[in-house]
């Protein structure tokens, strides 16, 4: 089976944007997994030391790496940022193709894990005793590092339980109540845009990550993955609830067509023309630096619900630290990943503004009591922590979600710029995803 799936995925092409046809993107042949490693082995590796190459874009890791070097003087960490997410996956794929320069540790987002797991490019950390850490993490991220497989292919680094960030000043000025359900959200969007034609409830130009998170919260489970059998279905009640609400926002032009992370976006967040964001709990640091002008205006509320009085949440974003199989120095690499993802490094990262995936940090009084100056002194972590606990853990991405997300704009994206209905867009997305799966040799359930 393993051999077969490896062959199946040979040529999963998207992330090989740069790879020449000559070298397939599949995992390397050979490469034996280490048999169970004891604590003593890891200690010995730390004692012996060496240089560890870490590819990650997460800014707080810099301090973590420095602390780790201080604690283990024989170890030197070469922290490299080869580019944010997509760029990093391309770089990683190039290195794997060339079988040279593969990092010892790589940051990979949960949605992308499946692809690397199925092509056997990541080391299964079960042999290092990673399984014992299961209870240390919240359910969403822990589900994420399994990547749809049996093993544990990384340790969660951060997570993104969703919440509603809203500009309180704008809401107060127009006397609008903070929505607690998505129906109220649409009402608020109408009221806001009517009161101030320049203001919009939020921005959205069609983003796969956001849409899948919304479906996740709405209870839709569009992806079914069982080994090499995949199914995609956007017709369950959850998906219907989502399209009904979002179609209204699109029809009435209540969301502004600005791409997230653009300078225009930061401008909108700062000047109040983008009034809310439903996004992951990692957002505060970006608001504080990108929209510094709006300090004190923003607050955090629980994510609006699909049913009144509900308490369901979803994850948006978040990533793990993994050990690529072609990387060297596995024991040492694991020691670092454990330090950054489950050990002292977590606290360092939280202090640096990152959002943890570990229960201990989320539940700690210090964390929960933290007051955010940017949110007018609000103890926002309480809302985030509650959201993390409310995430349903049975969500699955496709084993080739990187590809699927890349065609989102050609399919669902049309609903944002033309008369195409959101439901039709999702159907086209489903077809495109299944077609690709078939081409790659998956058994497709229609």
């Amino acid at each position: 089976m393993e051999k077969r799936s490896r062959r199946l995925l040979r040529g999963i092409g998207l992330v090989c944007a740069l790879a020449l046809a000559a070298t397939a993107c599949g995992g390397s042949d050979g490469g034996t997994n280490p048999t169970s490693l004891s604590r003593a082995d890891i200690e010995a590796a730390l004692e012996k030391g060496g240089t560890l190459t870490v590819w990650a874009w997460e800014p707080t890791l810099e301090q973590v790496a420095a602390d780790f070097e201080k604690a283990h003087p024989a170890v030197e960490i070469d922290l490299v940022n080869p580019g944010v997410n997509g760029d990093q996956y391309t770089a990683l794929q190039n290195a794997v193709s060339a079988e040279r320069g593969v990092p010892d540790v790589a940051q990979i987002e949960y949605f992308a894990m499946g692809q690397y797991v199925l092509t056997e490019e990541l080391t299964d950390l079960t042999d290092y005793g990673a399984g014992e850490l299961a209870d240390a993490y919240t359910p969403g991220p822990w589900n994420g590092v399994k990547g749809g497989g049996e093993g544990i292919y990384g340790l969660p680094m951060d997570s993104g339980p969703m919440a509603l960030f809203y500009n309180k000043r704008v809401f107060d000025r127009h006397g609008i109540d903070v929505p607690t359900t998505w129906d109220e959200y649409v009402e608020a969007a109408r009221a806001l845009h009517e009161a101030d034609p320049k203001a919009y409830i939020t921005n959205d130009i069609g983003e796969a990550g956001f849409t899948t998170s919304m479906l996740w919260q709405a209870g839709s489970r569009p992806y079914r993955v069982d080994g090499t059998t995949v199914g995609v279905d956007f017709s369950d009640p959850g998906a219907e609830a989502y399209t009904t609400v979002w179609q209204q926002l699109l029809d009435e032009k209540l969301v502004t067509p600005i791409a997230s992370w653009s300078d225009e976006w930061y401008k909108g967040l700062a000047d109040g023309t983008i009034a809310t964001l439903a996004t992951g709990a990692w957002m505060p640091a970006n608001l504080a630096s990108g929209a510094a002008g709006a300090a004190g205006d923003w607050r955090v509320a629980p994510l609006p619900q699909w049913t009144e009085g509900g308490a369901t949440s979803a994850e948006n974003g978040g990533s793990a630290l993994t050990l690529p199989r072609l990387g060297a120095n596995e024991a040492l690499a694991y020691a670092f990943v454990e330090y950054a993802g489950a050990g002292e490094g977590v606290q360092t990262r939280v202090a640096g503004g990152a959002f943890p995936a570990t229960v201990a940090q989320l539940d700690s009084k210090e964390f929960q009591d933290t007051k955010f100056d940017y949110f007018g002194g609000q103890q926002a972590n309480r809302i985030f922590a509650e959201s993390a606990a409310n995430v349903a853990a049975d969500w699955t991405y496709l084993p080739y979600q990187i590809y699927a997300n890349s065609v989102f704009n050609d399919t669902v994206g049309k609903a944002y710029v033309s008369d195409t209905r959101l439901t039709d867009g999702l159907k086209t997305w489903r077809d495109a995803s299944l077609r690709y799966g078939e081409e790659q040799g998956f058994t497709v359930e229609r």
Partner: protein
Amino acid sequence: MTTPVTTAPAGSAAGRSGSPGSAPRLRTPRHRHTPGRPRRSVLLTVLTGLVLLYSLVPLVWLVIATTKSQEGLARSFGLWFDSDFALWNNIGETFTYDDGVFVRWLLNTVLYVVVGAGGATLLAVLGGYALAKFDFPGRRAVFAVIIGAVAVPGTALAVPTFLMFSKMHLTDTPWAVVIPSLISPFGLYLMWVFATEAVPAELLEAARIDGAGELRTFFQVALPLLAPGIVTVLLFTTVATWNNYFLPLIMLKDPDWYPLTLGLKSWNAQAETVGGEAVFHLVVTGSLITILPLIAAFLLLQKYWRSGLAAGSVKE
């Protein structure tokens, strides 16, 4: 690549059409148009004016944007100043942010330009002179190869070069940027054409008859005549290397070896990073600082550049 290249010809063209006449004398029917006093065309003036505007507006935006702080960029109109003037602050912060990594990128770029573009010019001059003034078997084949190479964009070669360099263990080192920069088919072609026109065969023969060796003939007789062409090629290769983005993007992973282009992009990408610090004000200030040396090079060398471009256009 585009901004300085388009600005200079547009600027000089407009300057030329405006400068020679001291006062507008559009309605003097008996006045004869001489080469020094060309006829004015309203249409052409308007068109060049538009082109000038088209190339200057981004520059104006950039200059204005560098005077704004991060918040100022968000709250003010793009083509006018914000209430607080943060230019000096921005410049200071650009050079000191992240332990002064910008300075490192600047020095890297200078290194790539001096070694890469300088080397490319040297090779182009030597090769172009040899091809123009020596007859040897296979010259036509070399010509065909050069013309073919001019047609292949460097971007298309970047990935194969990456795989090759990766086998040679050269990726993620400065060599990976310098070595491909040494090759400039266009520069070689230009030097070839230029040397054919600018160095009379009679002069070389005279030098040889007087007993000068080939090296001495080249350095003391040919080289001074080639100067305008050399400057032209040097400008071309300097601009290409200074603005090179795709090659270093593929070759380099270590930010310590980034040129300015990649470094600025990585700063810009910080805003797209979870927990990253948005530093748009440093990106624009850094961009302005990045293009200043190129603008200076063009202003200082443009007379050579123009005579280089025009060389060979008139048969003597």
